[in-house]
Structure formats: C-alpha cells, structure tokens
C-alpha cells in the first residue's frame, strides 16, 4: 500500500509545478486506472480515452486532494468511478445488462454471446483456450449491471478492501458485500448458461 507521507509530498510537488512528480504519478497509477476502465467500459479504445480523461481531471483537481481524508488511491479510484458512471450514462448501456442471450450491443456483431462461443473452433493449445475463456468472462462482466460490475472490479480485480470500496461507491459496507455476492452469482449464472449451451 502507498506511503501516505510520500504520496502527500508527491502531490505537493505536483501542485508546485514539478513535472517530474506528475510524471511519477502517471507512471504509478496509469496501469491501475486503465484496467478499471477497460473492465468497466469493455473496449481498449474507450479505456484509453477514459484513462486520459481521468488523468486530466486529476491534474485539474489535484489541489483538492486531502490526505487526511483518505488514501490517494481511493481518491484516484473515486475519480475514475465517477467518470465511468458519467460515461455509462452517456452511452446508455443499461439495456444490455440482463442476459447473455439478449440482443447484442452496438459494438458487437448482433449475436448473442452464447452463439459467439458456439462459433468458435477448438483452441489449439491451453494458452489460447485460457485467453478465449478470459475474453468470454470479460464479455460476461460487461453484461451485468454497472452497480454490480463496479463492485466486482474493485474487489476481485483491484483487490480493494470493503471499506475502501464503500468509500469509493459512497454506500455502506453491507451494501458493498451484497453487491459483490449478487454480482458473482450473476456472472456465474451467465457463464454457466453459456457453457451449458456450448457443451
């Protein structure tokens, strides 16, 4: 975990106009933010654009960070989550969050996910197989509701604890746990249905 004093010093240097400090922050957090954006938005192009927007917003509001109120990573993740929610509202993806067999979204080729899996041929080796499984899981993650998805991403992919997730999502810890449970179950049901059809 980050050292609070070190990060606070880094932020102060950034505010003072130290370009090297800002570059250090970008180098440290770009991977994390990009992964959150990629898992939430679903595509690499959107993730890249959103990551840039997150850093632009960070750069403008860096002076508002107060290290006594929380960790810097929580602050960064909160900015990322808020921007992702705004992006989600703009792109209107609510209609594609229920089932894997519903009509496909606009960025896919109008096939249900189960049919896409059926079209795939047998993988030549385990590496390709695992990569394809990861793609299927990533696609299924994009099908569940954004409330459950963000909780799953922060917990199971970013390894944040419940308290930090609650601070980012601004909901009680009990709600966070409930969303995580429902999200995992929903994801399992989607994938179970998919592979049952493939078998």
């Amino acid at each position, binding site marked *: 975990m980050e050292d609070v004093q070190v990060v606070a010093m880094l932020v102060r240097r950034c505010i003072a106009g130290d370009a090297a400090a800002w570059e250090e922050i970008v180098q440290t957090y770009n991977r994390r933010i990009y992964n959150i954006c990629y898992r939430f938005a679903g595509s690499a192009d959107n993730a890249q654009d959103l990551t840039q927007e997150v850093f632009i917003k960070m750069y403008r509001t860096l002076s508002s960070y107060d290290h006594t109120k929380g960790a810097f990573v929580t602050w960064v993740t909160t900015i990322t989550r808020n921007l992702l929610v705004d992006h989600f509202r703009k792109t209107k993806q609510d209609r594609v969050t229920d089932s894997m067999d519903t009509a496909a979204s606009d960025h896919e080729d109008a096939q249900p996910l189960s049919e896409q899996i059926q079209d795939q041929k047998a993988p030549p080796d385990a590496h390709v197989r695992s990569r394809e499984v990861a793609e299927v899981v990533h696609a299924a993650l994009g099908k569940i509701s954004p409330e459950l998805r963000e909780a799953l991403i922060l917990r199971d992919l970013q390894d944040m604890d419940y308290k930090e997730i609650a601070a980012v999502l601004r909901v009680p810890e009990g709600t966070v746990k409930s969303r995580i449970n429902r999200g995992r*179950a929903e994801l399992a049901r989607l994938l179970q249905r998919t592979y049952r059809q493939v078998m």
Partner: protein
Amino acid sequence: MPDNTSNGMQCHEFDLLLTDAMDGVLSGAGLDRFQAHAGSCKACGPLLAEAEAGRNWLKGLTEVEPPASLVNNILASTTGVDTLRLGAVARAPQPRISWLQQAQATVYGYLEPIWNTVRQPRFAMSFGMAFFALSVGLTVAGVKPADLRQISLRPSSIRHTYYNTQARVVRYLDNVRPVLEMQAAFHGLKRSAPAEPGPEKRKINKNDTTQQPEQKPERRYSQTENHLILANAPLDPSLVDPSNSDLPVVPVTTYRRFV
C-alpha cells in the same frame, strides 16, 4: 432474496456473512451456523455455489497491459510535453551554424522561388532566344569575346578611353561640318527658286463619264424621315413664349417615384 430463517440464521444475515465466509475470516460457531443455513436454505445454498463460481471465473482475468503510448498521451494532454526525456532533448544545445551558412540559407530562401520560376520551359526558351540575339548582335558589331579580355578596368585606362572617344567624336563632327553646310546652302537655294505649277491631282471616277467634278452628297440626318425632330413639331400656341416667338418651348415633365 426471501428472508427465511433456517438453523437460527436469516437469509439477509447469510448474505452479509457470505463474503466473510468466502474470504476465510468466518470461523467458529458463526461458520457452523453459516454452513448449516447454506445446506438447508433453497435460496442461499445455490447462492453460495454461484458466488464461489463467479469469483473463480474472475480469478482467470489477469491485468491487461496499457498501450505503450498511453503515458505519453496523458502527459501531452496534461502538461503539454511528451516526456521529460523529450523535454531534455528539446533543451539540448543545438549545433552552431556559421554566419556564412546562415547568409546562404537566407539568400537561398529568397532565390529559390525565383529560380523555380526561371526553370520553367517557357522562360528558359525566352532566355535562350535573348542570349542568341545578343550574341548575333555582338558578332555583327564586330565585338569579339577575345577583345573583352584586353579591356583594362583601371581608372586611368577608363579615363584615357573616355578622352579618346570624345576626341574621335569631335573629329567626326569637324569632318562632317562642310558637308552639312553645303546641304544647308542647297536647301536655301531650292526654297528661294519660284515654284513651278505641278500637275493637278484629281481623283478620277472611273465610272463618271460626264467629266464634271465630283460632288459629295450632303446628308442631313436631321431631315430624314425616320428621325423625329422635336423643334419642328407642331407647337401649341399657348406654349410659345410671347417675348421670343422664334424659339419653341418644349415642356418637360418629370415623374418622381416615391417609395
């Protein structure tokens, strides 16, 4: 979720303990009650299985690698510079350019568009024709390029050439003077002599057999039939000025258009 009570635990309590049980932090009597409820409740048992399966699926998702250009793009969009290394390269001292090279670059900068124009075929042909005409003219005038080599450009030589040329012009005019005086006297005699009647020049109309001088027909365009002459228009006696009855008065009406 139905809120059933089974083995002393309600379903919402099971839901809250589910994450703790999966994280391995639930132990003792709480774990026993949790497992008992999962085994007996028709809703919570499958929920536990599905939650574990979902978590296992998510474990298969590894971190993706961001694009290599992401950091540069972020820095460019925030601070306006690509990287510190690029900034250092920009601040590095540039190789010094001598004043001669700078002057050449400046001259080439001005001359290049002119040279590009001159190199067009039409201009090249014009310059070729001009050079040909100049060379032919010099050849006819007896100027040889070999003579130009012997020309001395020293000030004393130039002054000497100037005085020689001036003396040659003066001698030429002195030699020509008697001829000019004779010409002037001849013209004076010619003017003083009585003029002889010269042959009468007359245009002869080949078609005219009457031998009468040709008369040009006078055309009065104001009296042709196709032209109206306002001065000859019949006058209304009321419009005639009594003080000057010779001049007709033409009434003029001006219509103004009001918009």
